[in-house]
């Protein structure tokens, strides 16, 4: 096993020399050793927190290839992969990933890491949900008091989770208090802060949001002892080369191999914003978890 320090230092001779000629800025000469580019479509939460900058820099150092990371919502990231415009997807909505795999677009899914969601809201807490143990009860309270709630409404992983919680809570959200923003997490946090209102946010985006937010966490996720329903697992899936022969499957698998390796997982583990760890790696495990490779509800009888 190569320790991270060594592995970052090792390629200095070869790779850096190869890269040195490529930083001139003229678009034609960007390729390095393999003269290939990996296109990764991912969610705004991994991108905006800055995690991917660190992971991709290490990957590029090691493999001498460029990673083009495109930050979209989970739905859009998978849709881009469906049309063969990306090689690998890193997303966080298991149900959408499962559909993606079932339709044959994705292969070799791995559990990558997790963090959690939290319900954030204004200081005066009009719905009185502060410190609740059950997020479904908190959502019901928001609906009953008709306190403003801002929904992502963009088919993202967070949006999917929010809808699942409403479903679980037995509430059909609607009415003037329920606002559908159709925007990314950062924008929705800004809106929730300005309005003010409640929203469901992933911990990473909430922590790394740049402007001083007055809204704070009202219902904690499982990392801080909150309900398991607020867990936020991330998965990584390669695009099936049998469906799109143009995709760079080799490189996609190299990327998956790297990010799920000890070295990659250590980078995730060590990544902090404001002194706080944002993502918790879960790829390297002695206990086999076969469900990570197949759709969540798959059984051998499915065939």
């Amino acid at each position, binding site marked *: 096993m190569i320790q991270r320090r060594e592995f970052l230092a090792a390629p200095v001779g070869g790779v850096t020399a190869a*890269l040195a000629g490529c*930083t001139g*800025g003229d*678009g034609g000469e*960007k390729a390095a050793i393999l003269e290939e580019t990996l*296109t990764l479509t991912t969610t*705004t939460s991994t991108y*905006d927190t*800055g995690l991917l*900058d660190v992971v*991709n*820099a290490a*990957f*590029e150092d090691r493999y001498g290839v*460029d*990673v*083009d*990371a*495109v*930050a979209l919502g989970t739905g859009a990231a998978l849709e881009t992969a469906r*049309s*063969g*415009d990306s090689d690998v997807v890193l997303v966080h909505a298991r149900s959408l990933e499962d559909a993606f795999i079932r339709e044959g677009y994705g292969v070799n899914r791995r559990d990558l890491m997790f963090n959690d969601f939290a319900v954030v809201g204004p200081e005066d807490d009009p719905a009185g949900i502060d410190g609740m143990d059950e997020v479904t009860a908190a959502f019901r309270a928001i609906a009953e008091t008709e306190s403003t709630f801002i929904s992502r409404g963009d088919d993202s992983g967070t949006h999917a989770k929010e809808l699942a919680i409403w479903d679980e809570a037995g509430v059909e959200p609607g009415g003037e208090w329920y606002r559908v923003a159709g*925007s*990314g997490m*950062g*924008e929705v*946090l*800004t809106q929730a802060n300005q309005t003010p209102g409640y929203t469901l946010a992933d911990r990473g985006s909430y*922590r*790394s*949001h*740049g*402007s*001083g*937010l007055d809204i*704070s966490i009202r219902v904690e996720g499982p990392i801080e002892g909150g309900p398991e329903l607020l867990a936020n697992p991330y998965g990584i899936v390669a695009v099936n080369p049998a469906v*799109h022969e*143009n995709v760079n499957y080799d490189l996609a698998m190299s990327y998956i191999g790297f990010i799920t390796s000890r070295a990659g997982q250590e980078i995730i583990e060590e990544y*902090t*914003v*404001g*002194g706080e760890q944002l993502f918790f790696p879960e790829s390297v495990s002695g206990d086999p978890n076969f469900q990570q490779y197949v759709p969540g509800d798959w059984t051998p009888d499915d065939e």
Partner: protein
Amino acid sequence: MIELVSSVVPVGGGFTPLVVDFPFERNYVESIIYVSLYVSLTAVLLGTLVSLPIAILVGFSQFPGKGFVVALINTGMGFPSVVVGLVVLFAVSNQGPLGTFDLVFTTEAMIMSQFVLATPVITGVSLAAVTSVEDGVRDAAYAMGGTRLDVALVTIKEARFGIATGILAGLGRAISEVGSVLIVGGNIVSADGTSVTRTLTTAIQLEARQGRFELAMILGAILVTLVLLINGIVLRLGGGRV
């Protein structure tokens, strides 16, 4: 709770690690300016090459349906950039007609969409300029024995400020739009912080999305300054009297 970003001076105390992490480095800013200029100037150059012949041809001739052509050009001036971005994305996507060229998320695709956005503006304004050259000027050119080409050249010379304005308007449209370049370009930066398809506008959008409004404002100021500079240069080259 994350502290409010109070300043963007690169050195100094009192920063959260967030600010230090932010790749607001020289290389980063320079490369997004480079990509912005490269994409928009190329698109406008190509657009101008296509626009001027069309403007002159339409401006000089009378034919049935001319009104319709002019209306079409004027409609093109108002194309929503996100729609253009979507259409170009469909064209260059691996499923689309240009899929084999692997253009999605490249500067070439961004040039294509900005070309579609800028060309009608350049054509429309140039056409108006050409049309507004007084008939007397043309008549005089004819009377002095000029060929059709001579007359065209004289007209262009007379209309040059209007044409320059058209080109600048096209450039303004191209460099300030965010909808299409975000869709077809993907707002990509390589891991060393060099822009691949990130422009000033998409960088501003990204900062705003993350709530870093001050940084977004600074990039906005850079963009405005840049457009101002280009305007100054073009007008100076064009003779100054506008």
